């Protein structure tokens, strides 16, 4: 494998692995504090049992998130030293701030996980809130760094080097707002759906189990709210990309020929050689209407950019975009269904089909997150800093990166399998209907 390909694969694999744990690290603390807060408000011990059980799973996820994140912070330098040397002074800022957010998170997580009997109940709940908040903030800071790679600002280029550096301007780059909002919502949507799906599966085998019922109520509520907001935020993202990176937008849509009345493509396989999109359902003028609010709005196609700047592989960008949007609408649909049931019947637990669909929809959020990042990152290629530095120019001179790629892939595969196995055990060990009151009373 050529070094550049190995490096890109290693980066992609490490990030794809880490992001799962990040999403859970962002959203799971919120689920836990909501459960604990409900316990304090209602005195219902089942909520407390739930918070404690969730905390155990979260502890494992957190540890893996922390170590895989550490790998990433070194990997940026190990694989792309010229990128870091060039941009460290400009975007080091969000990373340093992220460092503080991690700190706060790790400190209060220690208090939350180990402090049930050590600190006052109120202090414990507050610690949980701090974890939830700082987890969200740490995600925001990394995504700001990433958005800068899409819309680099805060410097002037002189002879290929940055001068007049303005780190504050880099924090407020044009892509920062839509990316951070979209990613943060994504974390709650994805985690909410996974957790609700797992508990729904258990509930279906043990109907009326209050433990799972309370879990579903909290996780699905949070996931559903996020899932309804996500297409709105995604629409804002798409508009912003059309404005800031029109080439990337054309790649999302597989739009080889631009112009007015640009169609919106559903599905399809881009054929780069013959410059056409095969097997797609095209909604005429929809893309022009959506991005320009007018069927006559001119959308730039791939044909208006030199081919050496096209993202590759194009098919990955286009398909990933379709997958994300598809998952997004499916999730929003399920959320609305749940909302409808609540309005009509005040409960979702008499609709077995909703709960079954919930089980099936469990992985959708995480799939959308992974797909979304492929869209953003592969769509940025061949640039590591959009329009400024090519990915190939950032690469380390270290030979034999295939070895490290294989090494880390094997390591992460091993960790992934282990985590799934351990969580599976947690799920199996969750209390049955008869055990719930006994265990809850014992707390």
């Amino acid at each position, binding site marked *: 494998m050529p070094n550049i390909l190995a490096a890109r694969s290693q980066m992609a694999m490490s990030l794809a692995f880490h992001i799962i744990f990040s999403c859970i690290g962002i959203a799971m603390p919120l689920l836990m504090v909501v459960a604990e807060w409900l316990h304090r408000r209602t005195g219902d011990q089942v909520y407390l049992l739930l918070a404690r059980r969730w905390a*155990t799973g979260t*502890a*494992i996820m*957190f*540890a*893996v998130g*922390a*170590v895989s*994140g*550490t*790998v990433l*912070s*070194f990997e*940026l*330098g*190990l694989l792309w*030293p*010229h990128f*870091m040397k*060039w941009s*460290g*002074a400009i975007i*080091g*800022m969000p*990373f*340093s*701030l*992220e*460092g*503080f957010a*991690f*700190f*706060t998170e*790790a*400190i*209060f*997580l*220690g*208090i939350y*996980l*180990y*402090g049930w009997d*050590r*600190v006052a109940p109120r202090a414990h709940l507050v610690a949980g809130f701090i974890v939830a908040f700082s987890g969200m903030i740490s995600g925001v800071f990394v995504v700001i760094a990433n958005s800068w790679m899409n819309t680099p600002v805060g410097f002037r280029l002189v002879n290929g080097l940055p001068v007049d*550096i*303005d*780190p*504050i301007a880099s924090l407020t780059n044009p892509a920062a707002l839509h990316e951070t909002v979209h990613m943060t919502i994504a974390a709650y949507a994805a985690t909410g759906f996974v957790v609700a799906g797992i508990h729904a599966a258990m509930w279906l085998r043990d109907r009326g189990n209050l433990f799972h019922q309370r879990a579903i109520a909290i996780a699905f509520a949070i996931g559903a709210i996020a899932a309804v907001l996500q297409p709105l935020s995604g629409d804002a993202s798409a508009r912003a990309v059309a404005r800031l990176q029109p080439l990337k937008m054309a790649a999302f849509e597989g739009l080889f020929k631009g112009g007015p009345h640009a169609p919106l493509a559903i599905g399809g396989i881009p054929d780069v050689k013959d410059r056409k999109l095969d097997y797609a359902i095209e909604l005429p003028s929809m893309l022009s209407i959506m991005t320009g609010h007018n069927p006559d709005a001119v959308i730039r196609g791939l044909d208006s950019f030199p081919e050496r700047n096209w993202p590759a592989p194009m098919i990955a960008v286009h398909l990933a975009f379709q997958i994300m949007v598809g998952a997004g609408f499916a999730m929003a649909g399920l959320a609305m269904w749940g909302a409808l049931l609540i309005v009509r019947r005040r409960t979702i637990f008499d609709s077995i089909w909703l709960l079954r669909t919930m089980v099936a929809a469990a992985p959708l959020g995480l799939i959308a997150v992974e797909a979304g990042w492929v869209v953003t990152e592969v769509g940025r290629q061949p640039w590591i800093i959009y329009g400024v530095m090519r990915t190939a120019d950032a690469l*380390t*001179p*270290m*030979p034999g990166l295939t070895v*490290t790629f294989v*090494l880390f892939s094997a*390591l992460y595969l091993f*960790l992934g399998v*282990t985590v799934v196995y*351990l969580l599976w*055990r*947690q799920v199996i060990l969750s209390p049955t209907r008869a055990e719930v009151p006994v265990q809850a009373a014992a707390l």
Partner: protein
Amino acid sequence: MTIPFALFFVCGALLVALTIYVLTGGADYGGGVWDLLAAGPRAAAQRDLIERALGPVWEADHVWLILVVVILFDAFPPAFAAIMIAMHVPITLMLVGIVLRGSAFSFRSYGGGRDRAQREWGRLFSIASLVTPVLLGVIIGAIASGSIPKDPRHITDFLLPWMTPVCFAVGLFALALFAYLAAVYLTLETDDAALRDDFRLRAIAAGIAVGAIAGLVLLLAHREAPGIWAGLTQRVWTWPLIWLNGILALAALYALWARRFAVARVCAAGHVALVLWGWAFAQFPFLIEPDLDIYNAAAPPITLKILAGALAAGALILLPSYRYLLKVFKSRPKHRPLSADSPVERHSQ
């Protein structure tokens, strides 16, 4: 804020973060080493104590390393890039160690598995704890001995620069220091006199090993790292550091001997901190000898100023929170009755 002030502030923050990482995160590795070496009738109790001591704090301790990395690449990007290129192999290996150590530890604590699975995770955790500090020491040794070229674009050899006796001696030194710190801290983590004495003896043994390896490192540095050697021996202001260092080292050993554990902890931590500062001051102002120093590798003043401001503001939130964490977990519960099986409790306090 003038430029040199921001620069020195950032350098100071870098050194402080590294010091706290070594004093806390380093000791967590040391805990893993003692887990591996747990022996005697109380082996299970020793492991248990180590696990309880590490559990709540290791993730927070670990973030100090992240802070070191982010300060380095924000404030001194060329130095960061040079280290990451030349030290690719040992850093990669260290990362594998970090990943395995952290995940194995939490799998053991939270996996809730059967005894056998837990033992396997425990072994992985402790082996990773043994290897990782050696690699960290190797990397520091390579930086200190001037093995990193400034423009590594054309570097062809990624192994030889760090595969030197002096680098491995520093690696061993780091391991010994971490184990020593852990043993000293662990004496204060238990009320059980016998268990405490186990760690007291281990601390004394490790302390003596630290002294011996320090001698070896200096001997090798004299030959292979002339820059550091000169910095250590030919500067007026490193001498007091060295003397104080020696005094603290002996005081810590004496305090251990005399069972004055709280005093021993302060002296041992001070000793280890001064080892790091000795290195830093001997190398000053170089980040990477002989090409990159804190002036020519520094990010533009604006970046340094903002970073300094952010570090100061962050410290205002961070330090009280971190103290709170340590207070919650490292102080003994107030109302716990003295345990029946530790009669010595009363006068050893």
